[in-house]
């Protein structure tokens, strides 16, 4: 097993998840199995392959650029329609402040 409990807690922290000790123990082998499966890809020799992040290759020029023209979009009430909480035209969320 390559993954450690520390890794699991780290990933959970980045995802803002709170895991119990039991959950850490439960997820460790699962995550590890996923990574091991993905590791299989490393068996391929990709030294001659250019890394790619998109499923289409770039053309010589950019096929999909927009000109700078504003278009009417959502009204405020439409924008907030699915918000669990709102007020005064804002989305309302639990207070967050980064401070000492």
């Amino acid at each position, binding site marked *: 097993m390559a993954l450690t409990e520390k890794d699991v807690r780290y990933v959970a922290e*980045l995802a803002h998840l709170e895991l119990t000790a039991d959950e850490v123990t439960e997820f460790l082998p699962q995550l590890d199995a996923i990574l091991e499966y993905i590791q299989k890809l490393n068996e391929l020799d990709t030294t001659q392959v250019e890394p790619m992040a998109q499923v289409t290759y770039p053309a*010589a020029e950019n096929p999909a650029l*927009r000109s700078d023209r504003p278009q009417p979009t959502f009204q405020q009430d439409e*924008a907030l329609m699915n918000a669990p909480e709102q*007020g005064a035209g*804002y*989305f309302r*969320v639990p207070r967050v402040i980064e401070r000492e």
Partner: protein
Amino acid sequence: MSVATEVRTKYEAVIGLEVHVQLLTQSKLFCSCSTRFGDPPNSNVCPVCLGLPGALPVLNRDAVTMAMKAAMALNCAINTRSRFARKNYFYPDLPKGYQISQYDEPLSQDGWIEIEANGARRRIGITRVHLEEDAGKSLHEGFPDSERKSYIDLNRSGVPLIEIVSEPDLRTSEESYDYLTRLKTLMLYLEVSNCNMEEGSLRCDANVSVRHAGASEFGTKTEVKNLNSFRFLQKALEYEIERQIEIVESGGTIEQETRLWDSREQRTYGMRSKEFAHDYRYFPEPDLLPLIITEDWKDEVRRSLPELPEARRQRFISEYALPEYDAAQLTASKILANYFEEVAKASGEPKLAANWVLSELLYLLKEANKEITDSPVSAASLAELLALLSKGTVSGKMAKEILAEMFRAGKRAAEVMSAQGLEQINDAEKIAAMVREIMAGNPKQVEQYRKGKTATLGWFVGQVMKATRGQANPQLVQDVLKRELG
């Protein structure tokens, strides 16, 4: 906090600035929502900038053009191919859970800008200029339940920014101030941003470390955020430099962390530092193709670059024979430089124009707490007054008084002059009597003129103007003089 000067001089600060500049586009970077500032909250939003599932970004071409302008003006190389990346972090004003930025392949890199330090010009390296989208705005205060809730406005979400990263080449807070000032001037000249710090169009973070003077290795740095005015920048840097020196002096070690400047308490605060707080897990943005900048596009942008502050400063010196200091002052703002040039051209008196713009006009503006754009005296108006001054129609003292009144009442020079009884004497007989008197008192000049030295006419005009405190109609004076001297 204050560190003794002799201790201070043992250390050197190393500063690099990360400056975010909001681009002046009409629409956002990846969607067509308006970028207008001050609209009702959440009224310029759509599925893309709200981060709704399935929405796809489409890049704004003009934002790229503006970013290229800035990069070129900063002497950066434009990369033919760049790409976007996702910077992942959780914050309520970032609805997608990531910011689309550029990471390993930025739009441009390896530039420089010249600053002035201790009277000498010095190049500060620009690491990179890249494009990214802004986040929304969180309001933590001002609502009845602000103790428990934060309010989120996503109008700003997706607004285009460029991030300009400097090399750690700055050494003092003054240099940093000068760097930021020049950067701002440049952006205003390019018209790619309004650089309004109150509206957040110009934001600055600083990486600061200290080391023993002469050392070549860097100390541990802290990142200072929230430097949202030029004054804050300098104060926060001073504070942070001294804080670090005190720690090192007392044998401590600097912790690598992000600190926030608190302008009310005039100090920096460490933000809760987690060892992995900066794991943004960048990866290439799969929803956007790599950005290809063709040679044609580059040429198009290069051709559209306006005259930049440095070039304009040098031209003012050579074309208008202005002193270095005046040229630097005038070109510090594009609007001021434009105003000056208009006055200089219309009056035909560049040196006079420089003096009057820099001293009298700026003084009046400062007194009235106004910007040059709101000047009640237009450039054309000031030029008229200066033309009267240079012809001797009005004296310098009168011109000052007239200008003050023009400024106060928003009137032109001629209006002020007639309203204040400074109106011209248009009585040909009265002028002729005066001319005869002056001729009688100056036979030598009369003879010179009659012998063909017609330039003497100007001298006579001046004498009549002097005698009438500038109130005689100069054209009439000329006519009468020609007749009488004839």
